[in-house]
C-alpha cells in the first residue's frame, strides 16, 4: 500500500494528472456533465407524472413497484445491455449507454417521493384551495407541490448522490470520466491514478449529498414530520 500511496503523490505532482484529455479536471467535468444530464432528464420525466398521479391519488402500486424493481436492477448490466444498440444506432460508446442506465437509476427515488409527497398533502388544504376556485393545475403548482417540496427534495438528493457515484461506471464502456483511471488501474501495476481518482469520486459523492442537504435546509427550514 505504501507503494500505491507514493505512486499517487507522484501522479498528482505530474503534468499528466492535471492537463490534457486525461487530466483530472476534464475527467471530473465529464463526470459532472453526465450526472447533470441524467438528473435533468429523470426529473423532467418523473416529477410531472408522479405529481399528477399523486394529485389524482392513483398509482400507489406503480410507485411501490418502481422502487422495488429499480433496486433490483444492476446498473452495470443496463449499461452493458444498451451498448450494442448505442453503437449500432450511431450513438457511440460511453456517454449514451451510461446516460440511459443513470436515468433509470435516478427515476425511482424522485418518482416515489414526489408521488408520496403530493399525495400526502392534507385533504382539507386541498379542499380549501379548490373551494377558493383553484383548478387542478393551479392546485398542483401552488398548493400540492410546495407542500410536497421537502419530500421531493429528499428524493432528488438520494437520486443525485446515487447518480454522481454511479456515473463512474461509464468508464467500463469507454466514457472518459473519473472511473477511467480506476478501471484501467485495476489492470495495471501503478495504482497512483486509481487511488487519486477513487478518493476524488468519493469526495464528489459526499459533496453532492452535503450540497443537497444545504439546499434542503435553505429551502425547507422546517423538519419534515411524517404523517401518522
Amino acid at each position: 500500500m505504501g507503494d500505491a500511496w507514493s505512486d499517487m503523490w507522484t501522479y498528482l505532482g505530474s503534468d499528466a494528472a492535471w492537463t490534457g484529455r486525461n487530466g483530472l479536471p476534464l475527467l471530473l467535468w465529464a463526470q459532472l456533465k453526465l450526472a447533470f444530464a441524467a438528473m435533468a432528464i429523470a426529473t423532467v420525466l418523473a416529477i410531472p407524472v408522479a405529481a399528477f398521479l399523486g394529485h389524482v391519488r392513483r398509482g400507489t402500486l406503480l410507485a411501490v413497484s418502481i422502487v422495488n424493481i429499480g433496486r433490483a436492477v444492476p446498473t452495470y448490466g443496463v449499461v452493458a445491455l444498451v451498448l450494442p444498440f448505442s453503437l449500432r444506432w450511431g450513438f457511440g460508446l460511453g456517454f449514451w449507454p451510461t446516460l440511459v442506465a443513470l436515468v433509470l437509476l435516478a427515476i425511482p427515488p424522485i418518482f416515489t417521493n414526489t408521488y408520496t409527497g403530493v399525495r400526502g398533502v392534507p385533504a382539507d388544504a386541498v379542499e380549501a384551495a379548490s373551494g377558493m376556485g383553484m383548478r387542478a393545475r393551479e392546485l398542483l403548482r401552488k398548493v400540492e407541490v410546495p407542500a410536497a417540496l421537502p419530500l421531493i427534495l429528499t428524493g432528488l438528493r438520494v437520486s443525485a448522490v446515487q447518480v454522481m457515484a454511479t456515473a463512474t461506471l461509464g468508464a467500463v464502456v469507454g466514457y472518459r470520466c473519473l472511473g477511467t483511471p480506476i478501471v484501467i488501474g485495476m489492470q495495471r501495476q501503478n495504482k497512483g491514478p486509481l487511488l487519486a481518482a477513487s478518493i476524488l469520486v468519493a469526495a464528489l459523492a459526499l459533496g453532492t449529498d452535503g450540497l443537497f442537504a444545504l439546499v434542503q435546509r435553505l429551502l425547507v427550514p422546517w423538519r419534515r414530520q411524517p404523517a401518522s
Partner: protein
Amino acid sequence: MKRQHIVAGLTVLILFAATACGDDDDTDASSSGNEQREGPTVLIGAQEFGESAILAEVYSQALEAQGFQTDIVEVGGFRDVLFDSFDNGDVNLAPEYVASELNFLQEGSATSDVDESLGLLQPALEERDLTALEPSAAVDTNTFVMLTDQSDELSIASLSDLAENGADLTLGAPPDCEENAFCLPGLQQVYGLDLSANFTPLELDLIPDSLEGGAIDVGVFLSTSGRLTEDQFTVLEDDQGLLAADNVFPLASQELVDAYGGDLDTALNAVSAELDTEGLIAMNARYDIDGDDPDQIAADWLADHDLT
C-alpha cells in the same frame, strides 16, 4: 415470542443456506494417464485478452498430456501485472511476445529480427530469474486498423499517411497503450504522430465493434485477430518498421525450468515448433467470430498437431 424466534431462525437460515451450497472447484490438474511428474505445479498466467487465454490453455493442456500438473491463473491485467505475479510466485510460466517483452524491460531495444531481439532479451530476463524458451514462428504485433471506407476517403493507407493526415483522429486501444512501446510511444517516436489527446482506452475485444460503429477512427487490433478477415477493415501499413519481431514464446521462471531438468523445455518447444501465425489466426477467429471457448479451441489445435 416463539413465532418470532422461528422467524428469526428462518431469516438467518435463508441467509446462510447459500454458502452451504457452495461447490468445490475442481483443480484443473488432471493427468491423462501418463506418469504424474514430481515437481512444482506449473502456474500459467493468462492476461486480459483472448489470445493470451488461448495460448495459456495450449501450454496447459500440452503439459498435462506430458504428465505435468498445471493451473491457469488469470492475472487480471497486462504485462506489468504479469511481472508482479512472477515476482511473488503466483505465476511461473506465461505465453509472451519477444519484441514487446524486450521493449518492456529495455526500452527501444527490440528489432524486427527475432534472433537478435532474443539475444538481447535473455540477459534482461536472467536478471529477474526468468528465462525465455524457444520462440515459435507465430508473430502477433499490434496493428492499426481503420474502416476501409474512411481510409479510402482520407487517403490513409499507411502509418506515415496517418501521421500526415490523421493527427486528430481518435485512437482506440487497450489500456496499456500509453506505455506500450508498440503503441502510442512508438507512433510518437517512429512516425512523429501524437494521438494521445484523442486516445480512448478500450478492451481489445470491444475495438472492432467500436470501429465499425464509428465510435473511434483508428483501432488497435492484434495482427492475428480473426476479425481482420473482414473487408470492412483495412490494416494500415507499417512502412517505417515500428512493429517488430513479436514472436510468441514461453516465458518461464528459472526455478521452474530447473526443477524439471530439460523436460519442461522439451514439452514446450514441441508446442512452439508447431505454432505459426496462420494457426494463431485460425484460433483467434474461432474465439472472436464463433465465440468458442479457449479450452476447446486449444484442445482442437493440439489434437490436430498430435500434441496430446
